[in-house]
């Protein structure tokens, strides 16, 4: 794979069978980069044991 983020992104999607419009490759790669950066920051304090399934119980228990 290329070290060029937009080419890497294009290659990744091609492996999924999705043909990315070349005009959008740079924009899509940038969106993903930003998202990953935020995700890293946001999950730094997350407990090792945190699981998605806990959400439904918190929602239910959060009712009056």
């Amino acid at each position: 794979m290329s070290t060029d983020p937009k080419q890497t992104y294009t290659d990744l999607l091609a492996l999924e069978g999705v043909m990315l419009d070349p005009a959008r490759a740079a924009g899509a790669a940038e969106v993903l980069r930003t998202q990953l950066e935020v995700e890293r920051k946001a999950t730094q304090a997350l407990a090792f044991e945190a699981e998605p399934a806990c959400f439904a119980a918190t929602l239910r228990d959060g009712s009056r």
Partner: protein
Amino acid sequence: MSDLLALSAAELARAIRARKTSAAEAMQVVLPVARKAHAKLNCFVRIDEEGALVAARAADAAIARGRAAGPFAGVPMAHKDMYYREGEASSCGSKITRDRPAPATATALKRLDAAGAVQFGVLNMTEFAYGPTGHNYHWGHCRNAWNPDYITGGSSSGSGSSVAARANFAALGSDTGGSIRLPAHFCGVAGIKPTYGRVSRAGAMPLSFSMDTLGPLARTVEDCALILQAIAGQDPADATSSALPVPDYVAGLARPVKGLRIGIPASYFLDAVDPGIRKLLEASLDVLRSLGCEILEVAIPDMDAWNRAGTAIIAAEAAALHSNWLRERPQDYSDQVRARLEIGAGVTATQYLNALRLRDAALKAWLAEVMSNVDAVHAPVVAFATPTIAQTDVGGGAKMTELLALVTRLMRPVNFLGLPSLAVPCGFQPHGLPCGFQLIGRPFDEGLLFRLGHAYQRATDWHTRRPPA
């Protein structure tokens, strides 16, 4: 009865039950208005005049025979074209499913049928409910009843536009990242995004199974309460529907609001709010204060990360659901939806799962830090003056991500948290387009939001204003 179109759905239902009018008369009044509104606003995908009149007459016959009439017996309604009826095509605003027969009838439709509502059409929407502005490149853009040059908001664009135009008494919409509350705000109607799991998603087009919620847009908060009453509750066909009992929302409307504590967010929601919108929000708080509510500022956790996490969840789930069509029929998507699905296809598994893992901690933080101090949070729906269709016609181009993030910024964190939020109209911006506020509540506390919204509407008349014919 004169001017049936001035009535809310609840008022019309009462009038039909009292035999002051009939379902057939109501249908005969609304159908030509719907036709005319559609010609101007492009808010319908299909109107079934013949079938609707037959169904309305059948409703009248049932009432005449003394058969128990449901709360909406004979009330004409049209819904977002993503609620399936078995065997009928639901376009979902797309080219791809426009001729695909639906596999089963949506639970929400079955429940509204049982409540006596008469469906007379299906409404325009954003392609696959994946867009917040109301543009649709397959069926044509939906237009705002207050000024057709302006956006309706999306994705429940036809729901907002048709109800505002008095071409429909109430409509079902869906809200994954603001798609009920945005059209409610832009079109000047009420809309409730219920708690995740409150309404069965069975038989409604999925966009993001972790974030999708279904609910009504209507002229009044009372209508929203009545409709949610009819459609809420556990459903074996949707494993994520909640087993918690559905309270009596309608009975709760009459309860006093004096002493309820309403929080104003100290950050995020009120950053960079347009002065015209800020003024209307402040006036709405004055009304709530005059009703005896206590208004206080509340500190808000970091919503930006939650907003982005919500974006990643929706993007990944939408891309997964659409993966076959995205591979086989990419040319049949509009540029914008295709571009967004391509972004979703690149979300990594760890990013997606960490966003889902973050959700529980975020909700716990919100409940502890915000909702322990207040009964509801009052916030804008959007922070900027309503733009035109042309100004927001960015397709899948370079400006897309920025624009969509701006429009959904105050919406998506609420979906991420799974919380209920009620949008209520509160006046008009300086350029004449409507404005609303949202009230965000505790999980499954829709009843309290209805109580506050109904009290606000009893003290104001914004919901009675009608757009130019």
